[in-house]
């Protein structure tokens, strides 16, 4: 079994985000980054399959030099090798450009399973997985909370609205995107981190993958990002804890709930 796990590096959950001066993305200068939470469940799921039998787990990430740190973390957790795709032309690409790039990475590898998170915590598009499956010509299921492999196929539970689950079976090879909370993600052990230093990490440019900048020309352009318009926001109450508590209690009484 050969598994590809696609990881995106995103700003740390608790990072204070500000809009960059050109207005089209956030200021990344002083931010701390981490592996996109949704993707960590995909990685954990791949590592569990490896723990349970014989599997090679390959991790891939697209981005500037800083993503190497996330790939090293994944290797420390137990992935076997890593691929870092780095190219200036990918900086402004869109989900489809990312999917085309990842498809080029996967093309000659004959993966049985491709895993990644349902969406990223930065753009929240939830597109790369289904797009990559289409580019690879394989079946997919988005937003899974459980997978059970058997010979040549995998049965998955997809999370639907209101807590119900859609159970479907897919033939291998296929692509699955993971919901948060589907497993308990491991930490890299000290031994793992030491071993990770000796594991292969290949760096590839678009040209190495047989692609050109025009192949990843975006069809989606983020013109502007901005803080949601204030004004409809909450009336903020201030004061000491007990003053605030008294005001809240009067409001609760006013609503007839106390």
């Amino acid at each position: 079994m050969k598994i590809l796990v696609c990881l995106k590096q995103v700003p740390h959950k608790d990072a204070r985000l500000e809009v960059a001066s050109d207005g089209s993305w956030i200021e990344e200068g002083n931010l701390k980054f981490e592996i996109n939470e949704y993707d960590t469940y995909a990685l954990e799921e791949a590592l569990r399959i490896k723990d349970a039998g014989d599997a090679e787990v390959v991790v891939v990430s697209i981005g500037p030099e800083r993503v190497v740190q996330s790939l090293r973390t994944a290797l420390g957790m137990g992935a076997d090798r890593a691929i870092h795709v780095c190219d200036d032309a990918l900086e402004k690409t869109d989900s489809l450009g990312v999917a085309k790039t990842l498809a080029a990475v996967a093309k000659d590898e004959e993966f049985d399973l491709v895993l990644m998170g349902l969406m990223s915590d930065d753009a929240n598009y939830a597109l790369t997985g289904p797009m990559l499956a289409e580019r690879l010509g394989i079946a997919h299921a988005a937003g899974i909370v459980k997978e059970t492999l058997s010979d040549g196929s995998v049965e998955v539970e997809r999370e639907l609205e209101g807590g119900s689950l859609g159970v479907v079976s897919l033939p291998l090879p296929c692509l699955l995107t993971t919901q948060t909370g589907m497993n308990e993600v491991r930490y890299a052990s000290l031994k793992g981190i030491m071993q990770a230093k000796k594991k292969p990490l290949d760096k590839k440019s678009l040209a190495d993958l047989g692609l050109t900048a025009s192949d990843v020309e975006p069809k989606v352009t983020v013109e502007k990002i901005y803080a949601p318009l204030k004004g409809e926001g909450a009336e903020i109450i201030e004061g000491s804890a007990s003053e605030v508590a008294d005001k809240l209690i009067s409001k609760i009484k006013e609503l007839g709930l106390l």
Partner: protein
Amino acid sequence: MAKILIVGEVHNGELLEATLELVTLARNVGGELSSLVIGSGVAAVAEELSKKGGGKVLLADDAFLENYTVDAYTQVICKAIDAESPDLVLIPNTSSGWDVAGKLAAKLDTGIATDVIRIEEDGGDLVFIRRMFNAKFDARLRLAGSPRIATVQPGACEAFEGTEAGSVEALDVSGLESRTKFVELRQAPAGGHDLTKAEFVISGGRGLQKPENFEQLLKPLVEALGAQMGASRPVVDAGWLPHDYQVGTSGQIVSPKLYIAIGISGAIQHLVGMKNSNYIIAINKDADAPIFEVADLGVVADLFEIVPALTEAAVAAKS
């Protein structure tokens, strides 16, 4: 004039409200409207949509479509696009919407915006507005390619309530295939912790920091006020509370008289689940948290100071 195709969604034989929200959105954009209804034995749903503003409704009715599979639905939507040549395709951003939309855009090699809340016209072009960074920012997107595709956040528009004479046309859906096989649908277990009818919900989020604080800090407050306890997704993902406490798109959609969010920043999936509450109070130490956008009353402070004080005041108020 733009041509717009709405991909309708049917749940348990009934038209999903989100479909009628797309009708409102499409009418605001303006242009010639057609809709698609997919399923098995859904002719009545197509008839209903045609009378509720869906324009010309294409009916994809086949036993093979009884249960959703991404492959078959993608093929059907492609057939509808071939038949109608729309400039814009609108899909509800539901669990099947996000399964199918990316595949469709990749297949058609075209631009797509997901979880859109508004579409505006600007300089003769359409701009798609959506949230990003877990609702911390709004973004304006422009799309190239044809047709352009947008998945739309349920609840972002009011459902269209007018009536008019539309028409229904059968769409040829022969030759459908799916690599994915439907196994079964597992409904959420009934009789759990039901928040959908609660009058007063107090939810805790990641800001409570550890599971013990739900028991020691939040529960006394919930009990003192006679409310029901809810939670945000990260709390449930971490296993601190069971899934039937989760408020949000993948949990319960609540609309109590009063909703108090404590230590919840307000990711989109949470906001969608509680923003229709009659009155919302948010307590969070981050003044920029998106939860304050939907709240009526906000407290920007350390919940570990406010919650005990509030519990004390609630107990005092009752005695």
